[in-house]
C-alpha cells in the first residue's frame, strides 16, 4: 500500500513540476492608462552567461517565436529584421538587459514608444535512454522609452520531457525521437513558451482600437470604361482623392499590384499604367489604395469600370477569372 502511495505522490509531483505551469507576468502599469505605449520593438534577446548552460542560437529561436505570438496583441510592432538593421546602423545592437538604457537614442532610432527586452537564462536539450528533455528559461520586460518605466516583467520556464512517468511507452519513443532533432525541439518549445506568456501579457486592446483611423478615399476616377478591350500601348490613367500626404497606389484586379500614384496637390493623387503586350486579364476592377505610415490602409473600388485586354492566350486566361469561371456552390 505504501509502495502505491509513494508512486502516486511521485507521479503527482512530476506532473505538477513538469514545466507545464501557466506563465506569470508581473504587471506594474495597467494598459487602461491612455498614455500606455502602443508601438513596440522587440530587441534581440541576450543570454545569461554566468554558470548557466545555453545552447547557441536558442535566444534567436525564442525571439522569433515570441514575435510571432506577440503580434496577436494590440501593439504596432516593428518587424524583427527592421529592428536589427536600425540597431546596427545606430550602433545600438549591444544594449544591455540590466544596465541603464539609452532611452532617447533608442526612441529616436526605432521610432517606437516602448521596447521589449529578453534574457535567456537557460536552454538545454538532452536525450539519454528513456529520458528526454528540452528546457527553456527566460525573463522579459516591457520598458516605456518615454519614461524609462518597466510596465511588466516576467520570468518563465518551459520544459518538455518524457521519462518513465510519461503515460505510455509509445509517447516515450515518440518524444525521444522528436527531442533528438534539437532545432525542431527548441522551436516547438519556444512556441509553447511564447503562446503561454503572450496570453498573460496585458493587451491595450481598448485604447488601440479607439485610435484606429484608416485613410479616407473620397473619390477614385479613371479614363477607362468597360466597353472596349484594351490594346498594347493603351494608357489607364487613375486619379484618387483623399487624405493628403500618404502613400497611394492602385491595383488592376489581382493582375497588377500597387501601381504608384503621385500626389500632385494635397489629397490629389494621380498615376497611369501603360498596357504591355504581356498583359492579359479579364474582368478586372480598378482598386485604389491609400496607406499611412503605420500601415493602416484605405481601399476603394472604382464603380462602373471593369477592364479586359483584347488578346488572351488560352492557358494564361484560365488562371485569371475567365468568363466561364465556375462559381463555388
Amino acid at each position: 500500500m505504501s509502495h502505491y502511495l509513494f508512486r502516486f505522490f511521485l507521479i503527482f509531483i512530476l506532473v505538477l513540476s513538469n514545466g507545464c505551469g501557466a506563465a506569470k507576468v508581473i504587471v506594474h502599469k495597467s494598459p487602461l492608462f491612455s498614455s500606455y505605449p502602443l508601438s513596440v520593438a522587440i530587441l534581440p534577446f541576450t543570454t545569461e552567461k554566468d554558470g548557466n548552460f545555453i545552447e547557441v542560437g536558442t535566444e534567436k529561436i525564442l525571439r522569433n517565436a515570441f514575435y510571432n505570438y506577440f503580434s496577436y496583441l494590440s501593439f504596432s510592432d516593428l518587424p524583427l529584421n527592421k529592428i536589427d538593421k536600425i540597431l546596427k546602423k545606430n550602433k545600438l545592437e549591444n544594449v544591455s538587459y540590466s544596465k541603464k538604457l539609452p532611452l532617447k537614442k533608442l526612441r529616436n532610432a526605432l521610432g517606437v514608444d516602448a521596447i521589449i527586452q529578453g534574457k535567456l537564462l537557460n536552454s538545454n536539450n538532452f536525450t539519454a535512454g528513456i529520458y528526454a528533455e528540452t528546457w527553456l528559461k527566460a525573463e522579459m520586460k516591457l520598458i516605456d522609452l518615454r519614461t524609462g518605466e518597466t510596465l511588466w516583467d516576467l520570468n518563465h520556464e518551459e520544459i518538455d520531457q518524457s521519462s518513465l512517468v510519461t503515460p505510455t511507452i509509445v509517447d516515450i519513443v515518440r518524444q525521444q525521437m522528436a527531442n533528438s532533432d534539437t532545432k525542431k525541439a527548441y522551436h516547438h518549445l519556444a512556441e509553447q513558451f511564447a503562446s503561454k506568456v503572450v496570453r498573460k501579457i496585458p493587451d491595450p486592446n481598448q485604447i488601440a482600437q479607439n485610435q484606429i483611423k484608416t485613410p479616407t478615399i473620397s473619390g477614385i476616377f479613371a479614363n477607362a470604361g468597360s466597353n472596349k478591350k484594351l490594346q498594347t500601348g493603351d494608357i489607364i490613367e487613375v486619379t484618387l482623392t483623399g487624405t493628403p500626404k500618404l502613400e497611394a497606389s492602385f491595383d488592376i484586379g489581382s493582375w497588377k499590384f500597387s501601381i504608384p500614384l503621385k500626389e500632385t496637390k494635397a489629397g490629389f493623387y494621380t498615376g497611369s499604367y501603360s498596357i504591355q503586350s504581356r498583359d492579359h486579364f479579364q474582368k478586372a476592377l480598378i482598386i485604389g489604395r491609400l496607406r499611412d505610415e503605420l500601415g493602416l490602409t484605405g481601399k476603394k473600388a472604382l464603380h462602373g469600370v471593369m477592364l479586359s485586354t483584347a488578346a488572351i492566350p488560352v492557358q494564361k486566361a484560365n488562371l485569371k477569372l475567365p468568363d466561364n469561371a465556375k462559381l463555388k456552390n
Partner: protein
Amino acid sequence: MQNLKINRQKHVPTFSILIFISSLIIWTITGCSSQKPITKISGNMTQLSKDLLVAILPVQISDSKQKEAAELFRQSLYANFERSRFKLVERYIVDGLLEQNNLLDPNELKKVSAVRLGEILGADAVLFPIMSKVERSYAVIHSSIELKASVTLTDTRTGEILWTASQTETDFEGIGKLPTGIFAAAIAPVELVTNKLNLNKIIHKLTEKLTFLIEEPGSAEEGEFFNSPQIAPNSARAIEEIATSPIQISPNQTAKIETLEPIKKNEAKNEIKEDLKEENPIIKTVKSFVYTVQVGAYKTKVYAQKMISTLASKGYSAFITPSKKDEQVLYKVNVEKFDSKEQAGQFAKQFSLRENLNHFVTKVESKTPPQSLN
C-alpha cells in the same frame, strides 16, 4: 503428456497472433491521430505579391463553448501566417474596423462579400476561419479531444478563392494507450481533458498542419490545385454590381468618358500636362451640400444603424443624418453622396432595380468632398 505438448504447440501461434494484432491496434490508434489536411490552392497563389495584405477574420463558431478554442485557433493562425510570405493586418485593427462597421458577429461575416471586406479592412485578401467541432469526452479510464477547423482565403480584388483547407485533430489518453503505470493510466485521461495547455497544444498542431501549404505554396502537389478558378458567390455578385453601377466621372475627364475609351500614349501626356496647369477640379467642386438617396428614417438610432449595416454588407456607402422634427429626433438613412442631382437620380434608378426599398433623392449638408457616383 504428449497430448498436452501437442495442445500447447497449437495454442502458441494463436496466442502470438492475438498479441501481434493487439499490439498493432494499440500502435495504430495510440496518441494524437490526424489525417493530412484536405487542401486546395489556386494556381495564382505562387504569383501573388509578397506585399499582399491579409486580414485574418474572427473565427466562426457554432457553439459559445467553442469560444476559447476559437481564440486560440486565431492566435495560432496569426503566428503561423507570420511565417508565410504575406503581410498581415494586425488583429486589433481587423477587430476595431469590423466594430466600426457594426460587423460584430463573426458568423455574419460570411454574408459580406470579400470585396466589401477588403474595402473595410484595407486588405488584399481575407481569411475566413471556422471552428466546427470542439468535443471533449471523459470516461474515467479514457478521454479524448477532437477538433475540426477549416479556412478559406479569398482575394478581395477578384473574389477568387486562393486557398481552402480543413483539418481534424484528435488526441486521447486511456486504455487505448499502453500504460507504464496504473496511476498514469488514471491520471492521463483526467489531465488531457482538464488541462487547457493540452487544448493549446492540439490547436497548435492542427494549425501547423493546416497552414503548411500557405507557408510553402510551391510544394503543392498536382491534386492540390483547383481545376478552374473558384469565385466566392457573393463576391462575384458584388463585383458585377460594382462593374454595372454608374461610372464615376471626374469633371476634367467628362469629354473622354463619353467614349469610355482609354487614352492613347501621346494624348495622355498632353492630358496630364493640362491637368497640372489647372486648379484641382475635384476639390473645386466641393459644395456646402451634396445630393444623396434617402432610403429610410427612424426614431430609434439603433434601427438606423442596423439599416446602415445591412446596406454596408451589400457594398453601399451609407450614412445617417439626424434631424429634429416636432422635438423628435429622426435618424435618416442615406446612400452615397453625389455632386449633382442628375447623378443622384441616375444612381436612384439603378438602386431601385436592385433593392426593394422606398427612396428619393434629397440634399444633405456636407463638410467632406462628395463621393460622386462611387
